[in-house]
């Protein structure tokens, strides 16, 4: 998986969690919280959807890695690739 694909995975999840948000202009380097109305309940849902849909585990200590789309891609892409390598 590429980092671009990984960003799209996260965006797809956000689109389902927050269908009332406009995601067409999300800046990948800016914190999601600063450009979208996402609260802690929504971030918990991103974590849980990653597990449910993709089998990706994000321990609580790493939640801050999900701050922006870029940081999500940095953090999650290796996890996706490691998982793909295993199967």
């Amino acid at each position, binding site marked *: 998986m590429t980092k671009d694909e990984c960003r799209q995975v996260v965006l797809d999840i956000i689109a*389902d969690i927050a269908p009332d948000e406009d995601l067409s202009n999300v800046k990948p380097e800016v914190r999601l919280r600063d450009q979208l*109305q996402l609260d802690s309940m929504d971030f*918990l849902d991103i974590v849980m959807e990653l597990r449910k849909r993709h089998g990706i585990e994000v321990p*609580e200590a790493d939640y801050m890695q999900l701050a922006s789309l870029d940081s999500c891609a940095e953090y999650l892409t290796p996890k996706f690739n490691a998982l793909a390598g295993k199967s």
Partner: protein
Amino acid sequence: MNSRRDYDVVIIGAGMSGLAAGIRLAHFGRSVCIFERHNAVGGLNGFYSIEGRRYDVGLHALTNFSRPGVRGTPLVKLLRQLRIEREELALCEQRGSRITFGPHGETSLRFTNDFTVLESEVAERFPAQVDGFRALVAAVRAFDDVALDAPALSAREVVRRHIADPLLEDMLFCPLMYYGSPTERDMDFGQFVIMFKALFLEGFARPLEGVRVILRVLLAKYRAAGGERRMKCGVQRIEARAGRAHALVLDDGAEVTARHVISSIGAPETERLIMGDVPAGVGPTPPGRLSFVETITVLNREPTAFGWGDDTIVFFNDSERFEYASPQADVDTRSGVICLPNNFEYRPGQCLPEGLLRVTCLARPDVWSAWPEDEYRAAKGRWFTAVQDSARRFLPLPMGAVTPEAAVVATDMFTPRTITRYTGHFGGAIYGSPVKNRHGRTALDNLYLCGTDQGFLGIIGAMLSGISMANLHVLQKEAGKA
């Protein structure tokens, strides 16, 4: 039939909060079963049929309505958390409501889903109080009403810091108390804030077909997520062992086990189920004292045909002070709530099949529960008339060719006795115990409360209660443990 005996989570009660908790848990892969003693879902927000007519139990209006594009409101959170599209609820807004006080409603404040209407009404009727009112609104907006451990604070005291006229004070409290307060005469300020936002800063709406639309959406989500439910099968006992809910004994005698148990049936009602090794020092939660009667009149034309105007909800009080307390008499007809469900802005071409007039008044639960059946029926007939007569003082005198009396095609009435029979709430206490338990913890480690006694109010509040307890006690706890 479901034969499984062990679940990740068991939920007691299929009301709004239990269903919402169930959807969250099932969506995230937990095995969940909801046990409901009644044969219908909805609990305090259900519906029933008599002679082919369907009546909503509790719903006058869904509070907390906010329009698309307004962000961060309870309705938006709810839609997100349950993955519901706004369109699925098909909400139609109120036309406008009124608080009317005095023997014949001499002082009125109108309010709509546009808050500036109430603000300008206050400025017009209470010019000396409007600055205080604005300061109160600022305090309400600034208050963190979702904190799970807020200290108790008298709302009367806070309001009096800003508003010196007792008439305005009572007029503001009246709708907030009637639509959700389990406490007599005063409210906790946190509850006041929740209700103030829900009614005045947000507003009223409903689906054309009422509460069953919302229940249908919840059931469909729950089923699609893989949740199970068993109807006509309540939980009769929670077996406690080593500080945990070890097993649940069902009404049919079968036993089930679960890692987590969420009870939506009320705090005292849940405590009564716990048997066995109960930790000491956890006091019983006092049951609520406030209950209501509601009269429902079905008419063969829209209420506007009688010149009753466009009011959606009318909150009335005829006395010098508004007294929100368990009455001395069987029913207190001095104050109450009139609901005209026809007066929502339904979509073009849509309207309710018949006219409806609903009136709610405070009632004293012990007498309504104690009467033998014949006396109970007689009292219902007597009080039906008294409640109607009282409420009609606050509607315009009827005009038109047909009188409202001649237009009646059916009536019904529910009482504290009905509420206890169908919901199991002690004393018909619709809003539960005056002691709320925001974090939902109980004497047992893996048993939590959601719904009425957790303390989020209204239909949206009930669903958010189920969501937040499922999140806090199950999903959040397990999410970070990778």
